[in-house]
């Protein structure tokens, strides 16, 4: 389970998470699956370069 995987990486001493992972409503599950499939397309090109390149000059 996803939450278990998070838990594995929580530094020792931090409390357990209060919230379990929320699940989208069952009726919309098919559409939610499509959103996840769409993410594959978004990630297809330069995913890590995009992340590294997102650097601002600071704000406020």
């Amino acid at each position: 389970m996803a939450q278990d995987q998070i838990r594995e990486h929580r530094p020792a001493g931090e409390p357990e998470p209060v919230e379990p992972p929320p699940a989208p409503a069952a009726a919309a599950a098919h559409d939610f699956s499509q959103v996840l499939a769409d993410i594959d397309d978004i990630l297809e090109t330069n995913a890590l370069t995009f992340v590294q390149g997102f650097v601002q000059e600071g704000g406020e």
Partner: protein
Amino acid sequence: MAAPRIVGLETEYGLVAAHTESVPPGTPNPLTTAEAIAELYRGTPQAYRSRNRFLPNGGRLYVDLGSHPEYATAECRSIPDVVAQDRAGEAILRGMAERATIALAERGVPARIHVLKNNRDAAGHSFGCHENYLVRPETAAELDPGFAAFLATRPLLTGGGALVTDPDGTRRWTFSARAPMILRVLSPDPTRERPMVLTRAEPHADASRHARLQVTHGDSNVTDTTTALKLGLTVAVLDLLEDGGSLADLALGDAVAALHAVGREGAGAVVDLADGRRMTARDLQEAVLERVEGREHAVGGVAEALGLTRRALDALRSGDTAPVATELDHLVKHAVLAGYVTHAGTSWDDPRLARVELAFHDLSARHGLADRLRAAGAMASAAEPGAVAAAVTVPPSDTRAAVRGAFVAAVEETGQQASVSWAHVRLDSPPRPQLDLPDPFAAHDDAVAALVEEIRTSLPHHPGGRSGLGWLRHGLGDLERGG
């Protein structure tokens, strides 16, 4: 019944120009941030290229420190109006990014402009989402010590959620990207000290009657029901304080440390009160909610915000967050990331999750997720159908924004030169005396109405291509989808 109150929201957006073609890892961006913002504005009418522009909808679009696009909503008297105005800002910037990308392609530049509604970049720079609440001068001058306790624990409800990668490479899910960046409770300096409440005195109104309380520690929210909760709950607390109530007994020993803990751990974070008691952040929010429930509020939409707060706190206590899974921003985002981990058969250490996280904040219909999530029923919306599209050009009808918006629209449609701020308008061609607008509640002004009439009927028009208003109306796409 509490007094009416003006509410508004300023949002700084992240901006990046990305390669449209596959490039070797680590290739620099095709445009710098400064070049990207120039492209973002290049596609707009001449009138909009100014980097500090008031809009016909009463809002303001400008370029902030660090080349951030920033959008401030008009003055609003109801939460649904702020939500519609904020979403209208997203729509305007989305349209600008799409047109900029098309213009780049036409010039043969393989770059795409992305505008991101988030609060932190890859280098750890923070940019803000500032809430503005009109209060009595004495409320801001002598802020209840428990107000900081409310703000410090609020991210368990209103946080945007954030993946954090520690220096040793460890990945953690946290509840707020903004919380760890905040260094003070009160300060006049938003850039270096990054306070929870900004004390800079710029009321944009008659300072003898009104102060503007700026809450500057919150996350930008993609899920607009969370925007509504954030603003409505905070209005309810300010109503309580101005109606003789107090949160002083909930004051924290160290509100900034508590905020950092809530950002890391969410509802279960334990906070230390100034009087020696300890309680969970959730119990502190519960104590606040019990004091504000059942009161009358002049700001529209507060009751709905308190209803969601009640359902959210009950769900968080029960451990079953399903009842509010589509309404709280951090739950929606966590569901996307957890869903993608399962879908891709990968782990939370997969570096691509950081790219998924950015997609959650991307305003683009094609490269972002919000429209899709709303259509899939995985992200709720507080915006009435049609309200967002209308708010792109139409100001709230019950505040000063209506006066200013009508003036800006008239000036733009006729090509006149003018000077505009939150609290004045002035026609410069031909020159006319400045008209001050010190009352943000005044939705009509005889002198401005007469000037608008003169501009529209008596003055020569200098239309230059498509007007600003026409541009705003043009090509906004399927705003109606998902409300």
